[in-house]
């Protein structure tokens, strides 16, 4: 990936944090799904969440945009701070709509709206009060370029998004998530429904977004975590077991569970 601005070679690893979970607990009704999570998310880095199925990766991700508020019986406890302001995302007094405007999400299965390609990307912008056609057109183009979808769609912006292939639909969803310039983008297994070619395009895309935006990536694919993430966190049965720089995590995990998981002994 081309790096436009070369960082000073000896830059100290003092990074600012974009978000911070402090003693975060979450319940689906009586099911305790997140147990005392303490985890920091550095700004403009990719943090991968790995762990066996059912360990709570999606649950953690969906705390960030308060998706759990859509369903009854869910309960948060603790803190999930959005920096630099330090506002607690999961506090009852925090407006979920505001959090969703600032933190966007790409889902596991591509879920474009049954509207035109253009309208898919424009919807988030319209929600933010942008209605001038010229501005909309410019922002939509920009987002589609970010998502590496512009060349394939520029002649068919007003066709239904459902005419796109699965991989293109997922990139459209990424464009939709990026259009409103979010502070954090949440990816929940964005490639699990895609073939290897489409997967690698999306990985390239996520990789290219580092340094622009903070990314949380849930994945089942260890190679994917290794390829695109700066930090990796390993979760097990609702708890955070270990977090480290990705390279260290995969070469010398400190916890036995982590080692067993990344060497493919379970999960």
């Amino acid at each position: 990936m081309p790096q436009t601005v070369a960082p000073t070679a000896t830059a100290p690893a003092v990074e600012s944090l974009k978000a911070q979970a402090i003693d975060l607990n979450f319940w689906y009704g009586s099911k305790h799904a997140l147990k005392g999570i303490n985890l920091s998310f550095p700004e403009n880095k990719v943090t991968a969440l790995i762990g066996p199925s059912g360990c709570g990766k999606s649950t953690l991700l969906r705390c960030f945009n308060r998706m759990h508020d859509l369903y009854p019986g869910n309960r948060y406890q603790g803190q999930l701070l959005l920096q630099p302001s330090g506002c607690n995302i999961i506090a009852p007094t925090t407006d979920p709509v505001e959090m969703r405007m600032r933190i966007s999400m790409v889902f596991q299965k591509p879920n474009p709206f049954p509207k035109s390609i253009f309208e898919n990307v424009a919807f988030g912008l319209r929600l933010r009060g942008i209605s001038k056609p010229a501005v909309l057109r410019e922002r939509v183009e920009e987002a589609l370029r970010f998502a590496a979808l512009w060349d394939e769609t520029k002649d068919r912006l007003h066709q239904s998004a459902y005419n796109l292939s699965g991989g293109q639909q997922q990139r459209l969803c990424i464009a939709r998530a990026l259009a409103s310039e979010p502070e954090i983008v949440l990816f929940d297994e964005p490639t699990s429904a895609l073939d290897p070619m489409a997967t690698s395009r999306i990985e390239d895309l996520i990789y290219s977004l580092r340094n622009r935006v903070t990314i949380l990536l849930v994945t089942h694919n260890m190679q994917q975590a290794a390829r695109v993430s700066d930090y990796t966190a390993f979760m097990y049965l609702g708890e955070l077991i270990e977090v480290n720089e990705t390279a260290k995590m995969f070469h010398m995990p400190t916890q036995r569970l982590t080692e067993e998981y990344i060497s493919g002994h379970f999960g």
Partner: protein
Amino acid sequence: MDDLNRLIARRRRQDLIFGAFGLVCTMLGIATLVILLVDLVMDGLPRLNWAFLTSANSIIDPEKAGILIPLVDSLLIMLVTAAAAVPLGVAAGVYLEEYARKNWLTTFIELNISNLAAVPSILYGLLSLGLLLYYLNLHQLGITGADQRWPLGPRGSLAAAGITLALLVLPIVIVATREALRSIPLTIREAAYALGATRWQVVWHHLLPYSSGGIATGIIIGLSRAIGETAPLVTIGAAGFWLVLPPSPIQSAPPFLSFAWLLEPFSAMPIQIFTWTQDARPEFRVNAAAAAVVLIVMTLSLNAVAIVLRYRLRRRINW
């Protein structure tokens, strides 16, 4: 091996027998309907012409009697019915499906909405007699509360008739709205919420447009049921013989719309059919048959529109 084959052969036979039985049952239903239709068309054929549709009733000459007034009245009643039932029904469906918390009260309401669709229609007539006429005074212009009793009988207006049938259609619209909304996958809702849409924005920009075909189908099916309803209209005083067209809702001079027709007396297609069948002179039964054919064509074409809508919708959006 042989045993197995025999067993399979026996099952096949059972399949065949039930298949044949089912076919006969189905054909029986369809055949009855077709025979009825053919019989009506043959009876009514001599009167099925343009003049029949465009002339008013006549008490003496069956050859001159037409259905203009009940036809127009039925259409205007449907207009009122749709105007009342669509916003109420869609809003109620959206509320129950998207806004209401699931608790014993909403469950109770939901159960009873399905029950409402099965209430005998005469009860809706009684309800509006009491509520719309005697209480809300929705009777014809110039009639006061005191005139409402026998021997004149109730004198409901076009508005009262339309609202009465709207009550009847309401549960159908609510149920159709909810089903159409429920068929939209959760992932679409989540996509919209995740972009920062409020509940209302999700409903307005996504759920309603994506479910409009299903909702429209429900509305049309409701209307096609309402247009043939007789009992509730008789209850609130439909005219069996009426010669006056209501004033046109559309005017040539500003403000172009007029609502004077709402408080006019009304007749309706099924009522007209009924009174003609009651006439001692057999020539009028030909008119009744012809009017019945017109009514059936109206309901069948409404249903056809519903089918086309549903089919086109399925092709357009494939979740």
